């Protein structure tokens, strides 16, 4: 996901630059794109190297702010970003703006109070959201720099800012981008999605101060529209039971059901379920125990192509190291991963 600028691979650009079926102008354009991409990749590699060395010299870089600014923009049902800035989202009279502002601020509080993290990048990065994106848009995304929320069609889905888990899910993609740096394909993509669902669920539980025995694990429950509810759907995904027939988009339960080209929102089923199982076995509040292990695993060094087994083993090791502080977490994490075949 740190590669958002270069999603056309180098070999594809080279192939297109030589394709005799394309016009001379188009071949030249692809050749130029490839040349620029090569130089930009060098810059990115250099920037990453500089960041790593700077962190070694000064491990606690100065933060932009002690708490992030939260900014809201109105797309006015167009798709031009970021939209018109709202100088006072709370008093704007726009309920989407109010929700986006308050919940984003709450997520920032969640990360700071629970995990000691200052915003998405750990250095007080401004948290920017655009609302009213498109017309009846049934989606929310993190585009590499900001969150974007559609209003829903008021049939299948309502305004996506109604979902605390949605907002935390999107912000967590930013957090992952700045830490583990998982890609968005293959097993890394499934892990990327799972981490966002895990932190989405955790934030929703933290907001309501719910422990394991008094919560649900239903992703997207709060954005379902009347048509979805009339058909007895309760969620998009269910971390407690990924194959739940009441899910709009049921998922596999076990790692053996995952195939190499599976889309991330499908392959996130098994790691989602492992997180839920571990939380259930440990008991208490998810963010205080298993959530801490997952946070440590995510911030323990980048691995854009990480496999699910590697992530599972990373959480196992960290759980063992922290078993005195969080009794029982090592056994719980190990059992949970084994249950999903990892």
């Amino acid at each position, binding site marked *: 996901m740190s590669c958002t600028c270069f999603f056309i691979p180098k070999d594809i650009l080279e192939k297109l630059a030589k394709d005799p079926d394309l016009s001379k102008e188009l071949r030249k354009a692809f050749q130029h794109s490839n040349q620029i991409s090569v130089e930009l990749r060098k810059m990115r590699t250099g920037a990453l190297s500089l960041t790593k060395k700077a962190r070694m010299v000064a491990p606690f870089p100065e933060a932009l702010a002690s708490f992030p600014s939260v900014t809201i923009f109105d797309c006015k049902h167009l798709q031009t970003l970021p939209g018109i800035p709202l100088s006072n989202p709370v008093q704007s009279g726009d309920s989407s703006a109010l929700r986006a502002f308050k919940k984003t601020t709450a997520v920032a509080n969640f990360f700071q109070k629970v995990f000691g993290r200052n915003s998405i990048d750990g250095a007080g990065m401004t948290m920017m959201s655009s609302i009213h994106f498109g017309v009846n848009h*049934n989606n929310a995304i993190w585009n590499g720099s900001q969150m974007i929320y559609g209003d829903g069609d008021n049939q299948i889905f309502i305004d996506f800012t109604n979902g605390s888990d949605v907002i935390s899910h*999107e912000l967590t993609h930013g957090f992952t981008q700045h830490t583990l740096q998982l890609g968005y*394909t293959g097993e890394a993509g499934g892990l990327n999605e799972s981490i966002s669902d895990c932190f989405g669920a955790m934030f929703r539980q933290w907001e309501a101060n719910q422990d394991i025995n008094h919560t649900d694990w239903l992703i*997207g429950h709060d954005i379902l529209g009347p048509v979805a509810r009339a058909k007895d759907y309760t969620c998009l995904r269910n971390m407690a039971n990924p194959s739940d027939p009441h899910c*709009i*988009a*049921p998922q596999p339960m076990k790692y053996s059901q995952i195939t190499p080209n599976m889309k991330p929102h499908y392959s996130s089923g098994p790691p989602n379920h492992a997180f839920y199982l571990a939380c259930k076995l440990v008991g208490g509040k998810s963010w205080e125990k298993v959530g801490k292990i997952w946070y440590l695993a995510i911030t323990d060094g980048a691995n854009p192509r990480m496999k699910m087994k590697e992530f599972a083993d990373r959480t196992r090791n960290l759980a063992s190291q922290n078993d005195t502080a969080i009794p029982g977490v090592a056994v719980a994490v190990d059992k949970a991963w084994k249950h999903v075949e990892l």
Partner: protein
Amino acid sequence: MEDLDLLKVERIGGFCGFGLPGSHLRSKGEISISELSPEDLGVIDKLFRGNLHFASSKADAFFYRITRKIGDSEQTIEAPEELIPLSVQCCVKDILE
């Protein structure tokens, strides 16, 4: 609409998991090539000529699967939302089965 003029469009993915295996959410539509502006037609044509299948780069973004008929066979491409003209994006309708 004649088959050869038609683009079959499917929107996949997103936060809600449109069009995934087992998903009850679908987003499909059709648009005639003759309805596209010259600029939009040029974009679609380039995607088909490249015969490309892009992976999504933005978390929870949609991508589009577009199929057209060429003689007796079909060609399908997949591309992220930001590469697809708005006129093609807007031809799909979201359905919950």
